[in-house]
């Protein structure tokens, strides 16, 4: 544990660099793309250095301003946090590369060209902070920054549809923030601290803690678009421009889910009564079924991919009954925990690849209705192959990261006797095959594609690269597994 | 000597009580005017005049209770600002009410 010395620099860079980049982009206006490119490289390097430090020295804590909690705010990087930072860095690098073509400001400063870059970098900084911060109110400000950035990105297109979607997103997100803030206020009123580690010591099943846990969980569930509150996600993610929807779908809901994960496993582990955890996983399961069913009925590619996000996010909630809950650390909890981390990472990479590919199809054909995409495989082989690889990862077919995730969670489900969650995984996989078959069939149809504008090959390489990483995550899965174990709450119990 | 001293204090307290009481009375009058008067313009007339006078007396009464000059200065500044604000607001709102009534008549 190396608090607060030079080693904190890399950890701080992952948040301070995007912030500095967004400030620079506000001033420099026309050169937003170059600033974002520099920030992407910088944060990538910072995450690499941080990963080396965490792998070498274990969990790394930084007390901001030198003030230790409960007075100050602490940031902490453990295996899980650095893995998600890595996911963010990779996805953001690809998104910045594609957005540079879409939002180029060479001609002169345009509205969207000016607005996109500061917003996407502010979003990145807020996202990285949700993975690192240990203070509940600091997480609230990070969530607000995440929400404002995301809503503004959805509305940046300017048409009527995305504007309504952005408004609905904002209404839901504001509701989520209020419920979360209420919970944080109650916890401070009860225990005089907002730090997760101090709360873990002081929390006990008294009225304020129970109500606070309920409100925070409800608030974060709304922000993660869990089943009954998912209505805002598909139109918002489909309405945003492609690079933005890649960030929104692959990363943003994971920020609020990550906080929920921290709370239920580190801040209030013994507060988790089994029925509550089962309810969360039940809603997750319903999200998988409902999201997949609706994805089957969509006519536009981006709507299919957006509803697939609703479904895939449902898988993440299975971790609560399998790995959470009081009682001795069962041997299968570690594998459920790691499996869910894998699911989040692999879905992030695959979903970003899909939305970037969809963006390229829209760039080529002008719209994303399925019938317009027929036969694109012949003219844009790399992008379509990337989309296909991403579909493999989403389905969880070997050797993809998705398969490793499903395998780990399923073994945990069988070992713990809660077979219903294994059922959810299987049914989800089948439904995913269903809704992904339709776009794949259209893309590989042997119809002659209509008039389309050529898409440069270097842009087509981006989705392929991301999808390749999603597959690679499964192939070389032993390194991430050991890395994720650093700082895991019950690190002692070895996985299956 | 001591009771003479508190004589002055007594006098000061009595004066500030009287002034603040007067201020309160004007505020109540202003509110009554706002509630009871028949139309917008007479209400505006009542509230602007009564309230500002009330605030003036209140400020004066409290100034007697002040510990040092900084507070008296601030009380005077507050009253001045409130006067400006009330004057501006009354004039503009009256014109807006007139325009609104004119629009409704057409």
């Amino acid at each position, binding site marked *: 544990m190396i608090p607060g010395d030079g080693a904190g620099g890399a950890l701080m860079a992952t948040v301070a660099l995007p912030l500095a980049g967004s400030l620079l982009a506000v001033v420099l206006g026309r050169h937003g793309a170059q600033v974002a490119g520099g920030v992407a490289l910088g944060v990538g390097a910072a995450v690499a250095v941080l990963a080396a430090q965490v792998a070498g020295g274990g969990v790394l804590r930084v007390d901001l301003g030198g003030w230790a909690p409960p007075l100050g705010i602490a940031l902490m990087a453990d295996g899980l946090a650095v893995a998600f930072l890595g996911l963010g860095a990779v996805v953001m690098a690809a998104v910045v590369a594609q957005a540079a073509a879409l939002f180029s400001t060479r001609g002169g400063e345009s509205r969207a060209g000016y607005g996109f870059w500061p917003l996407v970098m502010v979003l990145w900084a807020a996202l990285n902070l949700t993975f690192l911060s240990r203070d509940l109110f600091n997480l609230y400000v990070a969530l607000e920054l995440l929400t404002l950035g995301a809503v503004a990105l959805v509305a940046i297109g300017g048409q009527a549809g995305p504007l309504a979607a952005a408004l609905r997103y904002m209404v839901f997100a504001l509701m989520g923030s209020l419920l979360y803030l209420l919970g944080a206020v109650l916890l401070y009123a009860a225990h005089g601290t907002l730090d997760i580690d101090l709360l873990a010591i002081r929390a006990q099943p008294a009225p304020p803690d129970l109500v606070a846990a309920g409100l925070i969980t409800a608030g974060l569930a709304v922000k993660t678009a869990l089943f009954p509150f998912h209505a805002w996600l598909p139109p918002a993610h489909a309405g945003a421009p492609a690079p933005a929807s890649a960030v929104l779908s692959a990363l943003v809901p994971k920020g609020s889910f990550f906080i929920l994960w921290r709370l239920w496993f580190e801040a209030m582990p013994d507060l988790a009564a089994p029925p509550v955890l089962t309810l969360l996983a039940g809603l997750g399961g319903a999200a998988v079924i409902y999201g997949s069913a609706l994805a089957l009925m969509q006519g536009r590619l981006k709507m299919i991919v957006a509803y697939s996000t609703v479904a895939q996010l449902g898988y993440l909630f299975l971790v609560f009954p399998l790995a959470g809950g009081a009682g001795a650390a069962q041997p299968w909890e570690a594998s459920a925990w790691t499996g869910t981390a894998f699911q989040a990472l692999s879905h992030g990479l695959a979903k970003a690849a899909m939305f970037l590919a969809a963006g390229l199809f829209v760039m080529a054909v002008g719209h994303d209705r399925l019938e317009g995409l027929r036969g694109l495989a012949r003219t844009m082989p790399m992008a379509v192959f990337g989309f296909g690889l991403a579909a493999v990862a989403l389905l969880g077919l070997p050797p993809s990261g998705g398969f490793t995730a499903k395998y780990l969670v399923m073994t945990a489900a069988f070992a713990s006797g809660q077979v219903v969650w294994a059922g959810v995984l299987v049914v989800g996989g089948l439904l995913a095959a269903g809704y992904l078959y339709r776009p794949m069939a259209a893309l590989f149809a042997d119809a002659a594609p209509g008039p389309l504008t050529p898409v440069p090959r270097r842009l087509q390489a981006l989705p392929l690269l991301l999808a390749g990483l999603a597959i690679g995550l499964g192939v070389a899965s032993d390194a991430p597994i050991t890395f994720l174990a650093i700082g895991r709450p019950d690190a002692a119990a070895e996985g299956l | 000597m001591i009771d003479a001293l508190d004589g002055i204090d007594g006098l000061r307290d009595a004066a500030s009580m009287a002034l*603040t009481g007067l*201020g*309160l009375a004007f505020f109540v009058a202003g*509110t009554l005017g706002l509630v009871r008067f028949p139309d917008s313009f007479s209400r505006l007339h009542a509230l602007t005049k009564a309230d500002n006078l009330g605030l003036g007396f209140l*400020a004066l009464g409290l100034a007697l209770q002040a510990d040092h000059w900084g*507070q008296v200065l601030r*009380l005077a500044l507050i009253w001045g600002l409130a006067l400006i604000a009330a004057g501006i607001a009354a004039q*503009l709102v009256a014109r807006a009410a007139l325009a609104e009534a*004119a629009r409704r008549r057409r």
Partner: protein
Amino acid sequence: MIGWLTFVAVGLLLSLAGALWRVWRGPAQADRMMAAQLVGTGGVGVVMVLAALGDWAALDVALVLALLAAFAAVAFVKANSADGAGDPEERAPDTALLQPRAGREGDTDRGGDEGRSGAGGAAP
């Protein structure tokens, strides 16, 4: 002295309560704005008394309230002007309205519960 000032503060608050009724009832938007103006001035009064009762530093709050008291009225007036950013004084007033009327409620009150260009849903 403390008891008296508390009484004055309570009295001021109750007078503000009267203004709240006008905000609810006030047929025309201008009536509601006036009532808000009264609450602003009354608020300055109450805060001054609270400052005398408690910590004199609260005078700064009264200062800010007095400073910003007119802003709501200015925003209302500008927003309701012809193009939404003008000034009601730019056009000569229609003085025909100001003819004294014997005893009848002023013209501005005959309007429906909502001012015509007034608030929110057209359906009352």
